[in-house]
């Protein structure tokens, strides 16, 4: 199974949802309504599946708004995101900046990007 498939399996198990509800573009908090305790459980599950250390602040982009600190408006948001979350592509960073007003931006594909990055850098 690929990384996305494994993450989807963990998500369906923890959130008690159907596999069809989870695509790479699905918002983890906005659409799947994952709560902080679900995210904690997900870290534990992902750590167990992929044997990589997971930093909850990074994988769930918890520090996103602090790291941006208003700079989305004055232009260097993409660099800030690249510095804080090196596993996200420039394209994804731009997507995130355009999406901030909609609520928590975390998508399933971000989790997959984090896992691939951790697995590659370990």
């Amino acid at each position, binding site marked *: 199974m690929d990384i996305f498939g494994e993450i989807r399996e963990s998500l369906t198990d923890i959130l008690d949802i159907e596999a069809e509800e989870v695509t790479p573009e699905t918002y983890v908090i906005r659409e799947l309504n994952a709560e902080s*305790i679900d995210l*904690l*459980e997900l*870290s*534990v*599950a992902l*750590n*167990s599946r992929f044997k990589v250390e997971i930093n909850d602040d990074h994988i769930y982009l918890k520090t996103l708004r602090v790291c941006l600190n208003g700079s989305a408006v004055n232009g260097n948001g993409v660099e800030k995101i690249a510095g804080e979350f090196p596993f996200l592509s420039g394209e994804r960073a731009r997507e995130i900046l355009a999406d901030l007003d909609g609520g928590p931006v975390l998508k399933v594909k971000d989790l997959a990007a984090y896992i691939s990055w951790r697995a590659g850098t370990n």
Partner: protein
Amino acid sequence: MKLVFQGHRVLIAGGTCDLALCLAESLIEEGLHPILTWRSEEGENRIVERLRPFEGQFDTAWLDLSQRASIESLFTHVGDDLDYLVDFAQGDFESLIGSADPELIRRYFSENVSSRAELLRRAARSMLRKRRGRMVFVSSAAVLRSNPGQGFYAAAKTASEALYRNLGIELAKRGITTVSLRPGYVDAGRGARYIESRKEMLADSPLGRSLRPEEVAEAILFFLSDHAIAFNATEICMDGGFATAK
């Protein structure tokens, strides 16, 4: 009442004290498997010596809260298959606040509060895999009524109780619950030396005596059992009424 336990493996932090060893014997009798932690080889020998009749029915592991790396090393050693945590770990630091060495103050809280929080974090993540776990923190009646010189001890115990309490409210829905027990003077280890010098004070207390290690161990056994799960995110005083009486 026959006690029922849903799990099997019990990590005992601070496994070299009399109470921990006494508890380990009770656990083994109940068919559970204790894993006792030690800080020095001397401590490890003490465990092995005392539990010699039960060879093969327990394990030992190194844990030194003054060395953060030892937490990860502990879990590498014992694995994630963990059902219970009983936490006796507590450094000794008796000093009037005004006369304490500033560096020792810092070190004491780092070991006894910060490191404990990291140990709890790691144990919780381990138990979350099974969605099951029970933790008992062995605090002290000194958090209610402490003597001069016990300020750091009482503060570390109080802070640790708060960590356990919160863990119990955060993870109970995921099957992980916690309780803190506050024993009074126990006739074992450090307590025994203290009791010797204060016999009269204890004779005047409601129960009129100190606690036996066995009765504290049996209480912990009950709090670990399935019957006691509803004692969650709370503290229970077991001091014969000493702290309540004037």
